[in-house]
């Protein structure tokens, strides 16, 4: 059945009806092309925002010290609540808390050769990298060994690193010794981190800073939790925690301020909600697009079959069996949709790959100053593309089948005399 004659019949029919073939094909190519562009753009947006949270874990909390807003038990409003070791003990006593990583902040001056720069040094535990979603561009972050041996190592930010390299002519800062407040530190890593104007950002092991400077108060405490998965659980936990800290520091539990408790889980659930909405929106548009493609294909197939009614009549008079007519029409639409669907697919993927490579080369889509990305890797999962193309092919065939079946049912003389 599917021999050379069969295929040559089909390709001849397509060649002989060039305009029709091209119009049908264009509808299909365009549908698939636009679908890919759309899905890719959506993915690019999602990837862009997600890339900012790479390596960041969600089960984390940050408590910021702040000043009170309400007077309470003889304390006046506006009192500044500094976090201390009692807060750490409190956190460590809670079963929901996994690991506490206090942030020891120490301002200072970093000196390397001729160059000096104001930095804010933070003593942190290795887990801090995942809590804050810090990105390392070179070298590594603080590790357990640094912690255990209280090593004087430091992770500096990219701006500082570039500035130091520019002045000193070094090609890398890794392994170099820098002086912070006259104490020598070895640079082990460079973080992408956010730079605050001229102020550099350094990370050193918590244990080292603790040993060097007798700090017992904290602006910031971070910790990871376990077993808090939903927004509700986290809200309840945050509220309870605030109450306990309020008792500890004697400020009103109803105080909106006093300390800030921020749940990464709640934030990320909110973000995910936004992305799910965007995603649903994109899919609705995509499906609408696919439907319009399917309608286009069915219409053209209907017209095709109508146009060919005479020919079908002649073929029947000459002894064509219904199956052969049906098969040739269906295969014709299959061939058109497959070839042009594939072309659209290649074009769409190609265009998005070009956009992607241009963006990567030029660094477009990322906000360099903030170290934030908004549009990254705008490509689409190939399996989605293929299934969309398959849907179009199947519907094209189904669309061709109904009118083909009708024309096969018509008596040959009626088909031949059809005008």
């Amino acid at each position, binding site marked *: 059945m599917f021999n050379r004659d069969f295929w040559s019949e089909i390709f001849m029919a397509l060649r002989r009806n060039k305009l029709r073939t091209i119009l049908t094909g264009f509808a299909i190519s365009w549908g698939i092309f636009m679908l890919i562009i759309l899905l890719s753009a959506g993915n690019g947006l999602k990837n862009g925002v997600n890339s900012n949270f790479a390596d960041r874990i969600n089960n984390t909390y940050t408590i910021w010290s702040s000043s009170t807003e309400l007077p309470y038990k003889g304390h006046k409003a506006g009192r500044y609540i500094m976090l201390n070791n009692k807060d750490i003990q409190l956190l460590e006593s809670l079963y929901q808390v996994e690991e506490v990583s206090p942030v020891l902040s120490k301002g200072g001056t970093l000196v390397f050769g001729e160059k000096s720069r104001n930095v804010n040094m933070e003593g942190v535990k290795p887990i801090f990298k995942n809590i804050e979603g810090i990105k390392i561009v070179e070298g590594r972050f603080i590790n357990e060994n640094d912690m255990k041996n209280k090593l004087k190592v430091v992770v500096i930010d990219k701006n500082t690193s570039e500035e130091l390299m520019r002045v000193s002519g070094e090609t890398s800062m890794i392994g170099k010794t820098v002086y912070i407040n006259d104490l020598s530190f070895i640079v082990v890593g460079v973080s992408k981190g956010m730079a605050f104007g001229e102020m550099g950002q350094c990370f050193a092991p918590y244990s080292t800073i603790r040993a060097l400077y007798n700090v017992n108060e904290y602006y910031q405490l971070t910790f990871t939790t376990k077993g808090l998965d939903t927004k509700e659980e986290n809200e309840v936990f945050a509220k309870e925690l605030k109450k306990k800290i309020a008792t500890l520091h004697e400020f009103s539990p109803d105080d909106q301020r006093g300390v800030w408790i921020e749940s990464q889980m709640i934030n990320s659930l909110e973000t995910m909600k936004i992305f799910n909405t965007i995603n649903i929106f994109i899919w609705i548009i995509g499906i609408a697009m696919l439907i319009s493609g399917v309608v286009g294909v069915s219409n053209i197939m209907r017209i095709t079959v109508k146009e060919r009614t005479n020919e079908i009549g002649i073929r029947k*008079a000459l002894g064509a069996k219904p199956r052969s007519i049906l098969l040739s029409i269906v295969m014709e639409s299959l061939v058109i949709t497959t070839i042009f669907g594939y072309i659209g697919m290649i074009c769409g993927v190609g265009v998005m790959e070009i956009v992607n490579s241009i963006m990567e080369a030029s660094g477009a889509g990322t906000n360099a100053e903030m170290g934030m990305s908004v549009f990254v890797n705008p490509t689409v999962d190939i399996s989605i593309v293929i299934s969309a193309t398959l849907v179009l092919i199947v519907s094209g065939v189904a669309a061709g089948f109904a009118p083909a079946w009708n024309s096969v049912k018509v008596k040959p003389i009626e088909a031949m005399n059809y005008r």
Partner: protein
Amino acid sequence: MIKLENINKTYFGAQPLHVLKGINLNVEEGELVSIMGASGSGKSTLLNIIGILDNYDDGDYYLAGKLVKNLSENQAAEFRNKLIGFIFQSFNLIPFKTALENVALPLFYQGVNRKKRNMMAMEYLERFGLKNWADHYPNELSGGQKQRVSIARALVTSPKLILADEPTGALDSKTSAEVMQILREVNATGITMVVVTHERGIANLTRKIVHLKDGLIESIEENDPDKMDFTKEIK
């Protein structure tokens, strides 16, 4: 070859039209029969029923000894392909196929391979003087050439029966004479032939003239075409 017993056919439209009101007709093998009648007399309908291009409501139709009634599409296709060759007034060639491909098409549906198919088609085109036109498309051919292509197509499967519906209706008188001459020669090889026409001149070239009027056979006239000089104008 053809045996029609009390064939009835009604077209059910807004106004039901009783086209054939009981046709009884026998056509023996090798006969050359014409069916004459005014337009609306049912002559084309009768031919379509004989060719299994249309169905009938009542009666029995035997073709080559087999009852043709309530056939499946596949059986009908088989009958048409193996037993019958058609020649139409409007030629009914497929416009995007060359003369050769048009002639070869019935063989394609018989499953004959391409090489043999084209060889046989070429043979028939040659027989009708169209060898040099084999690669031309129908719109590049004159009316007479088109009709000769369609005769070649009708003959290529070596059918037992040729049905021609106004084969000269779209042709001028000279070409008509040529076409009728070809048909007579084909008939002379033993192929049964039924020609529908409203032209007396054409009917005069057949041995048996069936006069149809208002869906009934009015008379069957025996005729000797050899008395006619078909080289003269026949209109």
